[in-house]
């Protein structure tokens, strides 16, 4: 049980930081790309055209998605960057997987793949480098791709404030029921959209759009009731029904501010969510 508490604290810490960089895939999907993954229609290979990485960090990687289970992937990097295929998977028989990488067909359905290869990269220096990736099927070259890797620290959101008070991390407890919300994004980013809203009586967040440096009013909704799971309960013909849910009462009601920015170097949009609590 100790580990559980430790996890909770770590989670709390991670959450405060990570919320600033949290990536939500489905926002503004029609307006802008949310992922740099693309499909090379000719070879059937899925890959990331570009990605960001951190220097001196062991956790940078990108994944190549493969159309058959007999593909091999090799990589060479420019600028002294270490690049290596550290993981491969091959689906057996008729098995396939979908990649969660936003590679979809015209109907928006995820394209199934039969194999994958993860490339880990490491650099001690910041800078933009290329990964030259070769995909072979047997002895035959299927395709060759250039993947851009950008090493360097970037801040998506540089500064935020509500009612004159700076928001550190990703939340603020305030006694001001309304005030100006301002955000300043980092130099690689462009502000696309600001939305805000609180819960409705069913526990769903209702967002409305606002503009930078405009006055917003915080939600006062302290209570909601939410059904988490329901089966056959409202069906009078069903002999059996089960439902679970929760009644929620907040200490201080929450208002979410969802900020959508464009990563100008990658050409993708990302969102982060801020929590404001009305004292």
């Amino acid at each position, binding site marked *: 049980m100790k580990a559980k508490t430790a996890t909770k604290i770590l989670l709390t810490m991670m959450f405060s930081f990570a919320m600033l*960089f949290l990536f939500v895939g489905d926002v503004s999907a029609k307006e802008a790309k949310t992922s740099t993954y693309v499909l090379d229609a000719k070879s059937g290979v899925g890959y990331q055209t570009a990605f960001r990485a951190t220097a001196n960090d*062991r956790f940078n990687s990108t994944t190549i998605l493969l159309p058959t289970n007999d593909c091999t992937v090799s990589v060479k990097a420019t600028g002294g960057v270490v690049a290596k295929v550290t993981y491969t998977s*091959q689906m057996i028989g008729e098995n396939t997987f979908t*990649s*969660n990488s936003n590679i979809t067909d015209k109907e928006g359905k995820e394209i199934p793949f039969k194999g994958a290869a993860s490339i880990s990269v490491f650099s001690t220096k910041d800078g933009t480098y290329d990964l030259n990736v070769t995909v072979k099927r047997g002895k035959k070259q299927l395709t060759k791709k250039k993947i851009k890797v950008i090493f360097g620290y970037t801040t998506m959101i540089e500064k935020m404030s509500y009612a004159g008070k700076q928001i550190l991390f990703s939340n603020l*407890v305030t006694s001001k029921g309304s005030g100006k919300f301002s955000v300043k994004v980092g130099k690689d980013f462009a502000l696309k959209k600001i939305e805000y809203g609180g819960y409705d009586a069913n526990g769903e967040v209702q967002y409305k759009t606002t503009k930078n440096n405009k006055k917003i009013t915080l939600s006062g909704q302290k209570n909601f009731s939410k059904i988490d799971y329901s089966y056959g309960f409202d069906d009078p013909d069903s002999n059996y029904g089960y439902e679970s849910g929760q009644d929620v009462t907040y200490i201080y009601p929450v208002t979410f501010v969802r900020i959508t920015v464009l990563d100008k170097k990658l050409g993708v949009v990302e969102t982060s969510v801020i929590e404001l*609590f009305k004292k």
Partner: protein
Amino acid sequence: MMRGNMIKKTWIKTAAAAVACAALWIMPVQAEYVHDDVNGVSYNDRETLSVDYAYDYARGGGTWTDVRVSNDGDTIGNVQSSSPNLIAQITEKHYSKSKEKDYSASPYDENQKYIGYPVVTKIKPGETRISFFAKKAGTYKVSFDVIKKDGSIRCKKYITVTTNYTYDTPIKEVRYAGKLVYDYGPYITKTSGKISVKMNKGFKLVRIEIGKPDSTGSYVYKKIKNNAKIKLVTKNVYTQSSSDMKQSYNALFPETAIRVYYIKNKDKTESYTTYDLYTINKK
């Protein structure tokens, strides 16, 4: 040990940094989850939070505890804080409802007309969440009651809520090849060296174990002596097969796990801290 991530959805640097910190796992001093079997109630009897912080998942508080009761019809209530500077409040009441036909009852009415078996709905209370918000730094006591179906009180329980995060630091230092393990960068180039551990006052070193991956990638631990010379893992290559897929791993940063087991003199509890030592394998 599944270490390959199939898809890296995005670059969450800070999360990665947090993972790097987690490589050195320091256990916070926290109370165990308390199970009172006599009264049928379980909860955390100590919580820590930051002053003036609130989170959505803590329902507008800085942290929370989930209380569970096992006696039928019992509920949680009368939550009281020892100070107005700490708000303690029930923020979530979970429930489950079930609907079943009662086949033990008669499907006929008093005129012997078939009306079908009656449907019985049962509501069962689930866990109750108590959230806390600290207006000022301090140590506070929060009490709550377990209330029986008839409204009488089954028992009173206490939770200590503090704004001071306190951590045990059992291990004074761990050196590898003469250098503190923190002082190495993202990986170590010296593949063999002496490992030495020094404990802090109040803790006794029990044993040191070295973990290396076997041919299937699972880590196998072996006891070593303090100040022993060890060899680091320089290669971690393995495959895993199931009926629907084959996976191959070849780590760029093969890791050696050093587990330091110790006893806290005060309460004789044993735990361990893991130190991960990384090398680089470019092939």
